[in-house]
């Protein structure tokens, strides 16, 4: 059983609030939930919507179609009417949608009147709608009440919202019985989280205790998340005057001895690039989170794209190693964020976590997160010799790292080319040896990258290749194709740089390879060609600012058959 609910309205109507409450309502009722938010770059007005897709079986992405439309304004009905399924239902208020022709599936519920009557606040229409939705789906209204109580620490506001929800529930009940139902199934220990929470939680567990950032959507989600836990876990979150300050502050904090990170989007990262190169030269560990959104320049600030892959891999003047990971979902984002911190300190390089608005803002149900699996590897030298040299040339390229402040030891580093001690030099022999030392770290790093995962038969006729947040939609598409007896496999990358190549070699004989990317120029295909010589002829590309859905991939892939 699967149901797709869309909640739509203007910015400022509390869509995000009830989307969060209703997503957890279905989680607690025993369903798998995937919630995708689509919003405009404005504080009030416009058209924002959230899709809550729920199922009794695991689901991994958003999907086309609407079974229930909760319309908090008239525009929502006009825009999405065509997507409603045969037995679909619309919950709306005739007061703001007078022109809507009454039909059996259009349930007029006085959302605004009930909100004002019961909660003395028109905004509470959103909770009236929640109550109506729960009634129509035959859900357990006590779970809704429990969630409102948890989310609103102000008792008075919680009570008002509960009264609004109850009024909505009664109004919904009076509308009769419907085919679509989501009765309570069971309590379980599953988790529901979005990408911003996953990266943020991963960073906290990894021991990140300093984050500096300049607000930029969607990267700020991670800053907001760490800030909301900064008192409980002693994390310093500093809003910098600009992105250049942010990356330099984080480098200072890392040099000072604290696991540090920055979070931004493509435009902010563009400003950080000189600092990225500084991390490479001074061998200062740093974790950089970049939530991609469509560019160039300001682009579409609240939409999604995979447009920064090549930028991120090539960013920074000069040559130095780096680790780039593109988490495929929230679970992967949590573990890979921790890995990014360990890699950054082990190799004393920048680690880049490349996500996107779709991953950051979408909630996925997962079975759990295993905190016992986590290790924190600081890779610091314990016994420091008297002749300690910060940039000692070693076989691995990794110089022993010590934090400044130890008696008898000096930690010296320089953005200029430097000698082993860290002092500025123009000795061209040392220069050559230092370049080679830094690059040797990248050679060992290859052993630490994770191979892509593969879903499908051993030697498929067609191989789909993807990376990052497209995983959920690709996985569902491939599962459907397999059910239709179509011989297809999916190779999906999370670690992308250095590019893992072992698994890829197994598919050399595949007749057809198709890359699927949320960009216009096939950046991963370009990377594949550059690193392996493999030339991809068929690409499915999407670059209108919206993520892929499984059915869209199905259609596109079949057309290339």
């Amino acid at each position, binding site marked *: 059983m699967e149901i797709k609910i869309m909640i739509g309205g203007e910015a400022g109507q509390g869509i995000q609030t009830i989307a969060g409450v209703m997503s*957890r309502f279905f*989680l*607690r009722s025993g369903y798998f939930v995937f919630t995708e938010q689509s919003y405009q770059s404005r504080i009030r007005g416009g058209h924002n919507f959230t899709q809550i897709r729920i199922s009794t079986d695991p689901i991994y992405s958003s999907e086309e179609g609407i079974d229930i439309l909760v319309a908090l304004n008239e525009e929502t009905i006009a825009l999405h009417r065509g997507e409603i399924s045969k037995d679909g239902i619309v919950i709306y208020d005739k007061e703001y949608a007078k022109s809507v022709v009454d039909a059996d599936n259009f349930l007029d519920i006085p959302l605004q009147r009930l909100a004002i009557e019961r909660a003395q606040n028109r905004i509470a229409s959103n909770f009236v709608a929640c109550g109506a939705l729960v009634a129509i789906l035959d859900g357990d209204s006590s779970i809704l009440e429990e969630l409102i109580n948890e989310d609103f620490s102000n008792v008075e506001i919680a009570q008002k919202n509960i009264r609004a929800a109850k009024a909505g529930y009664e109004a919904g009940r009076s509308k009769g019985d419907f085919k679509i139902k989501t009765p309570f199934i069971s309590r379980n*220990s*599953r*988790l*529901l989280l979005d990408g911003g*929470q996953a990266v943020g*939680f991963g960073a*906290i567990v990894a*021991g990140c*205790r*300093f984050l*500096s950032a300049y607000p930029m959507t969607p990267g700020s989600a991670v800053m907001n998340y760490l800030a909301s*836990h900064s*008192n*409980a*876990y*002693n994390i*310093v979150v500093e809003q*910098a*005057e*600009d992105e*250049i*300050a942010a990356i*330099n*502050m*984080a*480098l*200072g*904090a*890392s*040099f*000072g*001895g*604290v*696991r*540090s990170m920055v979070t931004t989007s493509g435009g902010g990262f563009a400003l950080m690039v*000189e600092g990225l190169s*500084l991390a490479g030269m*001074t061998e200062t560990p740093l974790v950089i989170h970049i939530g991609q959104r469509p560019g160039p320049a300001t682009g579409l600030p609240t939409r999604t794209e995979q447009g920064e892959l090549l930028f991120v891999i090539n960013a920074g003047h000069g040559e130095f190693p780096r680790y780039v990971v593109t988490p495929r979902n929230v679970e992967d984002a949590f573990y890979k964020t921790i890995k990014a911190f360990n890699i950054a300190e082990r190799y004393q390089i920048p680690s880049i976590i490349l996500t996107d608005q779709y991953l950051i803002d979408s909630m996925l149900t997962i079975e759990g*997160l295993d*905190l016992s699996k986590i290790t*924190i590897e600081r890779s610091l030298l314990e016994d420091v010799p008297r002749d300690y040299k910060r940039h000692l040339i070693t076989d691995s390229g990794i110089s022993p790292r010590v*934090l*400044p*402040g*130890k*008696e*008898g030891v*000096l*930690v*010296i*580093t*320089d*953005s*200029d080319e430097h000698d082993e001690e*860290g*002092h*500025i030099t123009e000795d061209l022999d040392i220069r050559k040896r230092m370049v080679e030392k830094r690059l040797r770290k990248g050679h060992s790093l290859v052993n630490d990258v994770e191979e892509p995962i593969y879903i499908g038969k051993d030697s498929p006729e067609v191989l789909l290749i993807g990376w990052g947040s497209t995983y959920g939609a690709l996985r569902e598409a491939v599962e459907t194709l397999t059910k239709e007896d179509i011989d297809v496999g999916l190779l999906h990358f999370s670690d992308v740089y250095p590019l893992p190549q072992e698994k890829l070699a197994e598919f050399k004989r595949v007749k057809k390879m198709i890359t699927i990317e949320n960009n216009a120029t096939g950046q991963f295909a370009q990377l594949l060609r550059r690193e392996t010589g493999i030339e991809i002829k068929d690409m499915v590309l999407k670059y209108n600012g919206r993520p892929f859905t499984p059915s869209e991939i199905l259609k596109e892939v079949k057309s290339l058959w």
Partner: protein
Amino acid sequence: MVTLEDYNNNQTPAWCPGCGDFSILKCLKQALVDLGLSPHQVLIVSGIGQAAKTPHYLRCNVFNGLHGRDIPVAVGAKIANSDLVVIAESGDGDIYGEGGNHFIHNIRRNVNIKVFIHNNQVYGLTKGQASPTSELGMVTRVQVNGVINPPFNPIAVAIALDASFVARSFSGDQEHLIEMMKSAITHNGFAILDILQPCVSFNRINTFQWYKERIYKLDEEYSPTDRVSAFQKSLEWGDKIPIGVIYKKIRPTYEEQLPQLKEMPLYRQSIEDIDYSPILKEFR
């Protein structure tokens, strides 16, 4: 006991003979010795420029970063590791030009770091272009008809932003400079020390003699705690140039206001064996 010898290293300065930087370096070592600080307790962060080479020429912890970005690195390092005495040291082009935004906002932030600016009113390393503090009319290889932008007044800007400590000294008066460095280092808060300095290669106007004729020391009658008179003092430039502590304001530092830093320095706090299960509950 810490001695000057503890601060000497084997590096040879790449400065022009007669450069004011030599004098500043000497005073810096003396100030650190006088305060009884060991080299391992000191971190000097610098940017790019002739002044920014300074930390290489004495024994201490060094982060020689990018042009204009010394203050953010110093601030990050101090937040992480407040056991260190952190000094950001660079030139007028670096801190007032390229790093202007950081100069402004870190006065507001008031992290307990020291900023020593070698202010020679010209670009040295790139060979003689105007700096933000170059005088009107100064002819350079780029400003071929003379500088037309009025000079940046760091002292006035700092006082306008209610900086915690604002002082000026002169590389040609070592006794005064050592005193000012020591006052800045012992001050609890963001301390700015603008150090006037001749450039023997590129600045033919503001020579040692030029400064010598104009500089006067603020005496005990001057009160650096009155903001309005300090602002008036900051506008004095030309025939008479005051040196000394021009403005001082006791303000809570950034570190004092953060609950995260109350117990112990951030870098010493354990990140292992922490119970994160309360966070997992948020996802249910």
